[in-house]
């Protein structure tokens, strides 16, 4: 197991411990205020979550043990472990590796940008409304993921948004976010 992986795994375990701690904190405050952290199994709303919190802590400790056992005993750093000791024989062998690395970082960046775009879409969906936010967001997604030319991306984005709106607004009678301009399909 690499050092960065071990740190990431440990952080998840810490998050689980924090979650368990939150259960105890809520039991001692909010549930205590409602007189629901004591009494028999019917009255005690904290009984079952607390049992689960104990279980989560026990499992977290076990997993932590596994992480510690799985960590490379010679303490190799991430960089050392990833770097192969055997030198490539030919130039041709190094090229695909380089290409793969570049591709990985490019797709990784794309995934991050897509995630940011998705958050931005959720932020503007309510204030702008579905009929403004969705075509714009879909256009941005199509562009980001490689749909070219841009006109094609725009047409597909508008058509997709309209089809989904027709399905939900007309067939299922769902009121999609109207936004500041109160935009909805004229039906």
């Amino acid at each position, binding site marked *: 197991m690499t050092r960065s992986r071990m740190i990431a*795994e440990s952080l998840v375990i810490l998050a689980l411990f924090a979650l368990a701690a939150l259960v105890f904190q809520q039991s001692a405050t909010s549930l205590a205020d409602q007189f629901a952290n004591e009494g028999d199994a019917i*009255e005690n709303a904290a009984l079952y979550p607390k049992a689960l919190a104990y279980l989560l802590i026990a499992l977290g400790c076990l997993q932590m043990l596994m992480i510690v056992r799985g960590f490379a005993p010679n303490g190799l750093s991430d960089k050392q472990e990833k770097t192969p000791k055997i030198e490539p024989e030919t130039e041709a062998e190094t090229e695909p590796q380089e290409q793969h690395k570049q*591709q990985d970082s490019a797709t990784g960046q794309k995934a991050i940008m897509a*995630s940011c775009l998705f*958050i931005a879409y959720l932020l503007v969906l309510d204030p702008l409304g579905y009929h403004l936010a969705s075509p714009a967001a879909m256009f941005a*997604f199509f562009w980001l993921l490689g749909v070219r030319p841009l006109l094609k991306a725009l047409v597909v984005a508008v058509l997709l948004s309209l089809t989904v709106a027709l399905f939900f607004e007309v067939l299922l009678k769902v009121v999609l976010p109207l936004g500041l301009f109160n935009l909805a399909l004229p039906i």
Partner: protein
Amino acid sequence: MIFETILSGASLFFSLDAILLTMFGCFMGIIIGVLPGLGPLMGLILMLPVAFYLPPVTAMGMLIAIFVGGSCGGAVSAILLRIPGTPLAAATLLDGYPMARNGRAGDAIGLAISASAVGGVLGGLVLIFFAPLLAELALKFAPPEYFALAITGLISIAVVSHEGMIKGFITGTLGLLLATVGTDPFSNAYRFTFDNHNLLSGFHIVAVVVGLFALSEMVMQIELGQLTKRPNVQKISVSLRSLGLLLRHRINLVRSSMIGTFFGSLPGAGGVISAFTAYAVAKSRPLDEKEIYGQGAEGGVVATESANNACCGGAMIPTLALAVPGDASTAVLMGALLLLGFQPGPDLFENNLDVAGGIFWAYLSANVFLFFIGILLAPVFVSVLRIQKMYLVPMILLLSVIGTYALQSSVFDLWVMLGFGVIGCVLRKLDYPIAPVVIGIILGPICENNFRRSLILSDDGAWIFWDRPIAASILAINVLVILWTLISHVRKKDAS
């Protein structure tokens, strides 16, 4: 009880809406199954919000048809591209792809579809026979037995997690804990709501499932790259002749379907195990000397496809009769049934026999539709393979957002979905299985209710679970399974 169930369900299922939507579900299921990376679970998740606008049996018919179609659709890409559209079709490519390379792609797809349909129907017949019997038996159970059963469902999923048993237990426990958010049904106290009225009834299961599975899957797909790649797919023609080909393998078909149904009915075992087991059994008993497995044997496709679709029927037996889902897909189906207002388990057969019967009809009809739609529209499904990911990903993201919003017209649900999307990404990156989270959330209320009811019934606390023979046996089996898995894990590690 069996005939009563069937008769009472017929009137609920045989309506134009229910039949058309079951056909639509089958069509959508195959399309989603065909696309590599997606599968029946993704289909169920995307169409779950739509189901809440439909009458119960119609909704369940559509969802079950997606489950059935999606379980079969993966075979198309396995046969043509050597990429299984779903993990269920991984065994199909062993002989399906060589058949396609030998110029018999049409026959291979035809066989896969007809074997899936017939296997599904056979699995359905077992479901119709055994589910009411099992439910009748379960009527004798009390809260300790129900608690033990719910725990079994969760443990089974965790134990068979490829990512490791402890990680499976952690995510399962996380799911159980998440299910406690909201108003406590016994004391009416608000738990973990942080004075937020949106949390009074807990996290909406659809928002959680869409986030965990759909959002995280889309991020993974973008990371995998090849967004603009368009696979080279040959043109095929599939005819009803494949049914004739299938009949040559009738013994293999029935045997594999029974293997599929058996493995499906074991929580956690699932379609992949059943497909590979059926393949291994068929390989050991070839039809004739000319049938060489691994080089395009028809029997290989028949075995794997009939097993993995029969598995759907098997998986629905414990889901409907005992409220113990066999995998994430049946957990979502069970969640849908709960949200539609019906309690799976013996209650369903006691109080809503017509709904149970309607579900049986929906399942059988979905498999019949699978045969006709699959064969007649095979060229359409093959052309779906040419859709590039750069179009697919935004489409699924939009459907995820609007589907989640449509449930309660709630922007809060969208943030819940996003939050669970992030959690899903982190868990998947670190090889934590996410199916137990969903099963935990769905089984959570059943677990808690029966746990607390058991303690109320008990004179000596938690010992009640060991005082009652059936509950104690179920729990003892669970403990033995965990120990056996741990020991074999340690032995494997020592050996390596």
